[in-house]
């Protein structure tokens, strides 16, 4: 992290952050159904599945 010391020295108080390179706003889509994926194809690519669901080991130690 020492390599980042060069920007530490900069005074950036008056500068706004730039999260997006091209300024767009209000990009939205209409509430219309689009085709879904094929469940069989998707489950076939799953590491483990059971009863048409993705199967994972017991969920211990994670945020609920």
């Amino acid at each position, binding site marked *: 992290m020492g390599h*980042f010391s060069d920007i530490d020295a900069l005074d*950036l108080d008056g500068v706004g952050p730039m999260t997006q390179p091209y300024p767009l706003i209000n990009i939205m*889509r209409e509430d219309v159904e689009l085709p879904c994926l094929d469940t069989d194809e998707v489950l076939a690519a799953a590491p483990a599945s059971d009863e048409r669901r993705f199967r994972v080991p017991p969920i211990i130690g994670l945020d609920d």
Partner: protein
Amino acid sequence: MSAIPSTASEIAAAVIAKRITARAVIDDYLSRIDARESEIHAFNLVMAQEARAQADAIDADIAAGRQVGPLAGVPIAIKDNMCTHGVETTCSSKILEGWKPPYDATVITRLRTAGAVIIGKTNMDEFAMGSSTENSAFGSTRNPCDISRVPGGSSGGSAAAVAAGFSPVSLGSDTGGSIRQPAALCGVVGVKPTYGVVSRYGLVAYASSLDQIGPFATTVADAALLTEVIGGHDPMDSTSIPLASPSLLPSVSQGVAGMRIGRVTDLPAGAEPAVEERLDRAFAALETAGATIVDITLPSLSYALTAYYLIAPAEASSNLARFDGVRFGLRVNAADTNSMYGATRAAGFGDEVKRRIMLGTYALSAGYYDAYYGKALKVRRLIAQDFERAYEQVDAILTPTSPVVAFKFGDKVDDPMSMYLCDIYTIPTNLAGHPAMSVPFGTGAHGLPVGIQVLAPALGEQAMFRVGGALEVAAGGAQ
């Protein structure tokens, strides 16, 4: 039957005019791959069967008098981080080895509609993180100009495929220079369009606000044609600019008379002498062709590398979190889900990927966000403002693409900083979201290719292709 042409535009014209069949074209390119691929290793997957079937379908369409697209019969190689439905897409990572996406990236759909024939998926640095393609989990790709040297990265396979003649055109992705730098090192044309011109839907994300898909080609005109085909608004990508695909081919031969070309006088030093010499010759050539050279400064550029290596890993750490063994890809079994995550990612990710994920996680963490990621976003705006000021005085800017010519395998792998410096001239345009392209312009040390980078303002592709076209003529590269 005529000989198989070497450019996309010629192939399409010949196929549409029925001078050659798409099948003949694809067979020819497949045989070139057969001859030299074991030496180069440009591909993770050669799609011989699918390609022949696609070519046959194009021929059938033409025979039946049905409409075909502007790339009819043109073979194209695709960097292995773009989703191809039912065809392995691995990002050159063990964690996606064998994964077949259930959908096509938008660029793939557009290529197919245009009649292009996908010939294979190309090798890359794992998850697009690297500048030499040495970070691939499936072995390196060799530079066709000198097989003891790297092709550059991360789109090394796509660059090498075109340089070796395995495909007239290919697609790569560019986040910090990953199209332009390998293009320079392999002696081909590479284009990164304006951020938002080409849809990212289906491109496996590395850094979302920096990634763009773009073409490799042997000619500037082919690169322009490809950009036209894949570019334009896509409703599946919220960051896609709501404009139709730009018209770019006419610009290629328009010349640079009356244009103002910027020379950056405070560019970070470090380019090899031969590279500097090539840049000087490029400026001279453009001046001869009627352009005016204007000295400009971009003072914030010296911070670009730092900003990039905070923003890109930060976004990547979040984008790569989905590789958790739950729904697709590699899973290393464990007693509980948390352990499964750890084991899967430890086994599935290479060292450079792990390094950048850790760095990115740190840059976003509570207490450090403002000092690192937050600050980097502000530096980004400074850089964009520098460019804005510069483009009031000039229409395009020239820099070297890469400070060095192709280096030998192993030269930089143990020194990440030295590897990161390969992108010093390319990174600023990703941060600003501007278009840039690399045009081969002679050779440097050891007779290896040198690329000159043309930068233009956002949506300035036409200016960029004008300059690129002129450079190509000056270099003696165009027909």
